[in-house]
């Protein structure tokens, strides 16, 4: 891909992601928020493709957009909150939240200070560009134990969700 096309794609994806995220946290209708978050997830999948993380992009679309977000959407529809769009969107403490965001931005503006700078990349001819096969090889050799632990975490989450959401029956 040409450099100019890559830059244009990046700036489009970045602008669309930021706009979707901003709209997602300010819409009053939860369904609209969810759909903007869906747009955000798909644009972030595009960014993953741009940085050469094709497998991550596929996982982002399948797991995040396909499973997690649909789960959230089911929930919003299941709970059926008619009063939600009429009420206030933000709590009375929203200036504090905005101040926290501004403080975070000020903190990040110090990124160029020495010691916090981005490390220099290694020489390009030493390491090959990571691709899907390299990711799979590392995932099932070096990260085999964390991979199995993640499956345990997911199992505990499934059982925990059932236990927490179960209707308590008094015998």
């Amino acid at each position, binding site marked *: 891909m040409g450099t100019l096309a890559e*830059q244009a794609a*990046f700036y489009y994806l*970045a602008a669309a*992601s*930021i706009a979707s*995220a901003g709209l*997602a*946290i300010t819409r009053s209708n*939860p369904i609209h928020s*969810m759909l903007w978050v869906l747009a955000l997830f798909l644009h*972030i999948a595009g*960014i*993953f493709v741009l*940085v*050469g*993380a094709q497998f*991550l992009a596929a*996982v*982002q679309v399948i*797991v*995040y957009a396909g499973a*997690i977000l649909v*789960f*959230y959407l089911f*929930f*919003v529809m299941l*709970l059926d*909150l008619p009063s939600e769009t009429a*009420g206030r*969107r*933000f*709590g009375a*403490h*929203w200036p504090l*939240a905005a101040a*926290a965001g501004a403080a*975070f*931005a000020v903190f*990040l503006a110090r*990124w160029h200070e020495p010691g916090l700078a*981005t490390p220099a*990349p290694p020489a*390009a001819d*030493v390491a*090959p*560009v*990571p691709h899907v096969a*390299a*990711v799979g090889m*590392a*995932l099932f050799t*070096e*990260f085999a134990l964390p991979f199995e632990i993640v499956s345990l*975490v*997911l199992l505990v*989450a499934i059982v*925990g*969700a059932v236990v*927490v*959401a179960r209707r308590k029956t008094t015998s």
Partner: protein
Amino acid sequence: MVPAGAFLGLSAILFAIGLVGFLSRRNIILMLVSLEIMLNAVNVNFAAFGHHLLEERGQILALFVIAVAAAEAAIGLGLVIALTRNRPGVCIEHLTELKW
């Protein structure tokens, strides 16, 4: 070639948006969604550093973050279901049992 700093800036902006959303929204479900936005910002960071340093481990950390996000969504929404059994809405201001 897009500079690595541009990816980090995008990630920081998305994280700040998620942070403000998490702290200011009244709806518990939308607070959880803001949390997902923050996790996505972190994933962008991991992937960008993996690309910058020619290292596939960044992508693997992002995969683990996605798995933990799925677990968090399941547990968080289970808690929301348990909460709505006892009270009408999903508004955070109704949860005042621990307030003194």
